[in-house]
Every structure is written in structure tokens, then in C-alpha cells.
């Protein structure tokens, strides 16, 4: 008797539009290509120089010697910049029909009407739509694409751009620094509470290309924000690359919740970097669902720099056939009285591989800090793989640190118990898997929670015994 959990229904996500573009840079990564991107984007001089320096770092750094095998990634086969056939629009009516249809099917305009304070939509390398509710504009909230931000708020951007995530962090951050395009810029002024979430959606349509959007969010003292990020792409036979970068500045007393649902197609290498610097008594919460991509290497990071700073990470990964999802969380406690809570779950099935990889570092100055890590992995068959690779680096004695992890299959005892209460075996297993994912699902925005429950749709076959 085997529990069959269906793969994510990708019908919507796999809709391909014709590969039409206004401009597509030639494949590869050279100085000339970077200069061409800079010309096409009409970069200010500082950004052009920044890109070229990042390219130098990229050329110096090695590929990771750990984690999933990235040997199929050939940068000579990737076009790093694809400009769609439209400009930035503030009305959906002005977005070209085929692009608009894609976002319609993904439910973005509908969600904007119902439950969002602002929406950004990126198609390939450029943002094609951006809007925000009027009252937030009046309160001084800025929500725009990165290119506009560079033009209109140059000092603010220059002060923060790739300071939280320096290009020397790793090879794909350096690549990002050289070829980045698109993404969102959010600035929430001091004391402003943005009650309804903002959402950016990233769609990569063009085959053999990369998406390198840059998200920069600054939440000033005492302000709060919930930001949602969604990603998808149709499936092609050749490798696509996503190497985005998210930089979050959560100032003293501020609150930021960053929710992500990654549902990339299964030819995507998702090598994304996300980091937050958290100030005094501020809180940074991450909610992360990784469902798509062929390979993911994704480890959001909180640096708790201010006394009393807090962070929580709630994540779930679901790896099916041919997927290798190497995800987790990193936190550095760099001030007294800081705290972190990590709750991670993973489900592996049909030959998929889930790895939870993490770092908890409590530095010498982080007296009276607390950290609690819990990760659970569920194996749904005997040819999938699930690994847990956490590093815990404790540099002072005035701490409370605990880490626990579990791995296993659906408990026979739990199934027996539920069946003794009148449930069929199928229903019992379905209930257990949903229960396993429940602590994460309840943290997701409601439409994503529904989607996740749909995809954990149990189908049982075979006979008992």
C-alpha cells in the first residue's frame, strides 16, 4: 500500500507565450554583454561601474563545492537580459494582451482587487506593471520597480543597494550584481503600518534565459509591512536560471513579514539569495514555500544586529520527481537578547530530494539570546531522499539553544488510531499529510494555503497489506 501524493498541477504555470521580446541579449557573460545591458537599461555611471566590478568578482569566485550538482548550468547558453514588448504600465488595460492573460490566469489582478495594497508584475527581465493604493502613496510609502527607484531615489538606493548582500557573498550573487534587472523597491516611512500586503510576481517566459530581479525593502523605525513574492515559469527542455537577490532592512522597532511561494518550472535552477538586517527590537518573519524548480539553493538569512531583535522562519519544501530542493535558513545573533525560531518541514516523493541546510550563529556579544530550531521530514516512498544538514555555532554561554529534527514515514500507529475512529485508510493518510503541513499552511496567505492544500491531494491505490 503506497500513499500517492500528486505532483503540483502545473497546467496554469506551464502556459507558454510565444517567445516575443523587444530585446534579448546574446547568450553568455562577458564584459561586452554587461556593458550592453547597462546601455540598454540606461544605467547611471555608478551602476555601470558596479556591474563591471561584480563581473570581476564573478570571474574570480569558484562554483560551490557543496550542495546540488550544478554542472548542467552553462552560462554560455543563458541570455541574462530579455526586455518584453511593453513599457512599465500602471493599468492592467495597457499591458499587452498575451502578458496580461498570463497574469490573469495566475490570478494576480484578481488578488490585487481583493486583498492587496499594491502589485508589481515582472515579465522576463523587466517589470511590466506596478501600482499601489492611493492612501499608501499619501503616507509616503514607495512601491516601485528598481529602475524607477534608481532614477527617482538615487541616494536611498545607492546607500542600500547590495550592502546587505555584498557581491562577494558567493558566485551567483556576483552574477546577479553584474546582470540584475527588474525587481521591486519598497520604502515604508517611520511609523507607517501597511496593513494589507504588497505583492510582486515574477514570471520568466523566455526559454534559455535568466531572471535576476532585485528586491530592496526598507522598513523604517516603527513601521510594518507584509510583502509577498510569487514566482513561476513555463517548462522548457533547456535550463533556465533564476538568481534573484532580496535585501531587507528592518529598522529599530519595525516589523517585516516576507512570504514567498516559489513554483518555478522543473527546468529552472533557482539560486536565489535573500538577507535581512534587523534592528533593535525589530522583527523579521520569513514564510517560504518551495514547490517548483529542478534545483533550488535557497537559504534566507536574518542578521539580528539590534538588541532585542527577533526572527522567525517558517518553511516547507515539496520535492517530486527530478527535483533537488536544497533549502533552509541562516541566522546570526549579533546583539544581546535576540531570539530566533525556525520551523521547517519537507516532503519528498517520487524520487525527489529535499535537503534542509542551515546555520545558527550566536556571537560572543549576543548574551541572553535564544534560538529554537525544529525540522521535520516526511518520506513518502523508498526511492526519495531527505537530508538534514544544520550547523550550530554557539560562541557564548549566556544562551538557550536547541535544535531538533525528525525524519520518517507516515506513522502506522497514527493511521491505525484514525482508522479505529472510523476513517478510511485513504482519509487517515490524507489527514496526516495535511496535518504535517498545517503549521506552515496557516502562515501562508490564504490563496496560497488553498493552493498548497490542493496540491497535497492524496490518492491511494493498491490493496491493504
Amino acid at each position, binding site marked *: 500500500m503506497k500513499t500517492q501524493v500528486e505532483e503540483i498541477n502545473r497546467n496554469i504555470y506551464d502556459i507558454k507565450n510565444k517567445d516575443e521580446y523587444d530585446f534579448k541579449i546574446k547568450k553568455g557573460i562577458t564584459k561586452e554583454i554587461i556593458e550592453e545591458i547597462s546601455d540598454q537599461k540606461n544605467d547611471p555611471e555608478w551602476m555601470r561601474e558596479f556591474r563591471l566590478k561584480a563581473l570581476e568578482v564573478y570571474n574570480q569566485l569558484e562554483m*560551490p*563545492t*557543496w*550542495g546540488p550538482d550544478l554542472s548542467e548550468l552553462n552560462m554560455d547558453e543563458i541570455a541574462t537580459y530579455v526586455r518584453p514588448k511593453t513599457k512599465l504600465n500602471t493599468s492592467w488595460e495597457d499591458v499587452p494582451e498575451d502578458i496580461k492573460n498570463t497574469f490573469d490566469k495566475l490570478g494576480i489582478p484578481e488578488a490585487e482587487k481583493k486583498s492587496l495594497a499594491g502589485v508589481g508584475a515582472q515579465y522576463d527581465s523587466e517589470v511590466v506593471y506596478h501600482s499601489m493604493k492611493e492612501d499608501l502613496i499619501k503616507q509616503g510609502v514607495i512601491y516601485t520597480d528598481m529602475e524607477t527607484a534608481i532614477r527617482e531615489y538615487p541616494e536611498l538606493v545607492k546607500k542600500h543597494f547590495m550592502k546587505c548582500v555584498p557581491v562577494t557573498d558567493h558566485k551567483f550573487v556576483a552574477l546577479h550584481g553584474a546582470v540584475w534587472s527588474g525587481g521591486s523597491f519598497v520604502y515604508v516611512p517611520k511609523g507607517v503600518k501597511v496593513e494589507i500586503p504588497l505583492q510582486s510576481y515574477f514570471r520568466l517566459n523566455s526559454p534559455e534565459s535568466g531572471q535576476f530581479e532585485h528586491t530592496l525593502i526598507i522598513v523604517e523605525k516603527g513601521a510594518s509591512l507584509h510583502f509577498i513574492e510569487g514566482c513561476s515559469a513555463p517548462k522548457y527542455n533547456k535550463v533556465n536560471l533564476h538568481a534573484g537577490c532580496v535585501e531587507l532592512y528592518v529598522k529599530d522597532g519595525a516589523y517585516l513579514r516576507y512570504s514567498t511561494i516559489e513554483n518555478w518550472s522543473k527546468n529552472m535552477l533557482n539560486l536565489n539569495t535573500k538577507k535581512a538586517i534587523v534592528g533593535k527590537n525589530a522583527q523579521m518573519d520569513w514564510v517560504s514555500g518551495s514547490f517548483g524548480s529542478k534545483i533550488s539553493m535557497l537559504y534566507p538569512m536574518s542578521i539580528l544586529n539590534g538588541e532585542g531583535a527577533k526572527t522567525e522562519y517558517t518553511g516547507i519544501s515539496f520535492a517530486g520527481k527530478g527535483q533537488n530542493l536544497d533549502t533552509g535558513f541562516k541566522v546570526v545573533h549579533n546583539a544581546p537578547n535576540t531570539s530566533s525560531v525556525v520551523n521547517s518541514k519537507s516532503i519528498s516523493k517520487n524520487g525527489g530530494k529535499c535537503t534542509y*541546510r542551515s*546555520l545558527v550563529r550566536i556571537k*560572543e556579544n549576543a*548574551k541572553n539570546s535564544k534560538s529554537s530550531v525544529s525540522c521535520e*521530514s516526511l*518520506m*513518502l*516512498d*523508498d*526511492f*526519495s*531522499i*531527505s*537530508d*538534514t*544538514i*544544520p*550547523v*550550530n*555555532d*554557539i*560562541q*557564548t*554561554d*549566556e*544562551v*538557550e*539553544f*536547541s*535544535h*531538533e*529534527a*525528525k*525524519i*520518517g*514515514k507516515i506513522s502506522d500507529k497514527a493511521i491505525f488510531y484514525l482508522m479505529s475512529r472510523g476513517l478510511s485508510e485513504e482519509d487517515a493518510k490524507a489527514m496526516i499529510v495535511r496535518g504535517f503541513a498545517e503549521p506552515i499552511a496557516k502562515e501562508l496567505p490564504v490563496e496560497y494555503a488553498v493552493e498548497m492544500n490542493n496540491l497535497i491531494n492524496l490518492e491511494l491505490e493498491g490493496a491493504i497489506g
Partner: protein
Amino acid sequence: MEKLKLNETPVRTSRNYNMNNIKLENIEIPAKIPSFNNVQITGNNSKVSIDSQTSKINLKYGLNKKLLEQLDLYANQKLKLTIDNKTNKETIINFKLDEKEPILLDNIEINANEQTNATVIIKYETTKNVKAFHNAVIRTNAKKDANINIILINLVNLSTDNFISIQNNFEENSRINYTIVDFGGKSSVTNYYSNLVGDNSDNQMNVVYLGRENQLFDLNYIGELRGKKTNFNMEVQGVLRDTAKKHFKGTIDFKKGCKRAKGNENEVCMLLSDTAKSLALPMLLCSEEDVEGNHSTATGKMGEKELFYIMSRGFEYKEAMKLMVRARFNEILDNIKNGEIKNEILQEIDSKLD
């Protein structure tokens, strides 16, 4: 003086975390290996035969190629123990490094035949001020239904580099209880690997470590579960004071086919100073569905409530601290049935906490 890179983890992670291996600088690896005779073998086990015909060293992991080659070629103590008795008897091997014989390269091979039962205690110590070098390999083969207790005690001084590679092979229904008391060494680096191939085989691994001054412990413990219904249980209790540092790398690896296997790993580190450092990488690797795997690690200082309680009963801080450390180690030290040796370890704990 040499720079050594050793003790690679079975799976790599980001090198920024400094956990994939350990790099030691200024290690004096002796070029010439003089003889070593300061070993005493005692006990009541008449059915253990001992000779020096050890087999070629061929470890899956081990600390480092160079150290293993050195042992293969130049070991100055080779001991092959063949166990034949059915009732549990004890053999004690006591190595003492001193000014005359400060270099020990010991190659120990323990072969426990079918249905045998025995305890082997291996103890390493040094005279107080000698600057010694110790490199060891200890291999244990537990045949079908064998039941072996191995107690490894490291009490070398803080001027000595201590390197130990361990490999255990398990046949069907065999069981090894491995207890390690790791107190000594300027650098104490241990690589422990259990290969649980036989169905129903069982490895209970219990470790206590106590670090002080500038001591560095690099502990890389690996259990691979291959047979059906195999069981690997790792319990590690440690205390660090002063500027001591510990890297704990524990891996439970459920290999495909190890149906109904169980693996548990628990590491608890008590820090007695704000300059002691604890790094831990407790890994669970799983390629089999029908298993149960758990790991947990915890790090923190002594419980203030417990300390307060003991002190309110008239104990001074230092005595209270010793009591708490003893209490933490006690469950593991209870595996040592030899009262004399257990007492020696308890005294060692007290003296290290003074």
C-alpha cells in the same frame, strides 16, 4: 611543523561554516617512530588471544590519508585481539606516554567471534609535562550475535596531539556498546565510523568530553545503517570551560534498504565560560522511507535554578558545579563497570574543574 587537513564530513556544506573538515597548523608529525613498550594489558579474560598480526588498514573514512599511512607503515604498537569467550570478561589495555616514549602509533584490531561477549577498555594517558604525539586506529569486527563493550579513555595531557580513527563493522544481530571518555589533548581529533550491515545489528555510542584551557575537540561520528532493523544511538554529553572549543559532527545515514532501522542522535554541550565555543553539525541523511530518525542538540550554561538549589544546601559554587557536571556524565559513565577506572575518571573530572 605541518598543516593538517583532516576529519572530512561525509557530506559537505558551505565552507564559510568551517565544518567540512578541520585544519590544524603547527602539528609536529614525527618523522622517525621509535619503539613503544609502555603498554600494560591486564584483565580477567583468558579467552582473548593477542598477537601483532593486524590486517592492512583500509578505512572508509578515517582522519586523514597521511595519518593512516603512517599507522599502516610505522605503528609501534600492533594489537590484534581475537575474542572467543561467551561470558562477559574484561581486557584492559593501558598506554602511558612519557619522556622516554612520547610517541605512540597504535593499530588495534578487535575481532569478536560469533556469539562472544567481552569488554575491552583502552586507556591513553601521559606523564604530566611530556609533549607527546598519539595517532591510533581502532577497528572492531563484531561477528554474528557478538556483544562487545568497548571503553575508550583519553586522558593525555594538554601538550599532546591526539588523533584517533575508529571503524566498526557489524554482522547480523551483533551489538557494540562504545563508550568514549574524551578529556585530553591539546587537539583531540576523533573519526568514528560504524557500518551497520548486518540485520538487527545495534550500536550504542556514548561519549563524554570535557574541555578546558585552549583545548580543541573535533569529533566526527558517522553511523551508516544498511541492514534491516538496525539501530544506531548516539548520546554525547560535553562540558567546555575557559577558551576550549568543540566541533561536533554527527551523521546518521539511512542507506537504501535499511527498512525499519532507527537512528537517534543527541548532543548536549554545557558552556562554563563566555569564551568557550561550541560548533555542532548534527546530520540526518536518509534514502529509505521506512525508518525513524531523530536528532537534537542543545547548548547553554548550567541551569541557574539547579545551581541555586545545590548551593542553598551548603555547597560552594565549585562543588556545586562539579556535582552538576558529574550528574550530566553519570548516565554514560555507568557503562563503565570497572569501579577503579570509573573512580579515576570521576577524579579526573574533579581535577579538571578545579
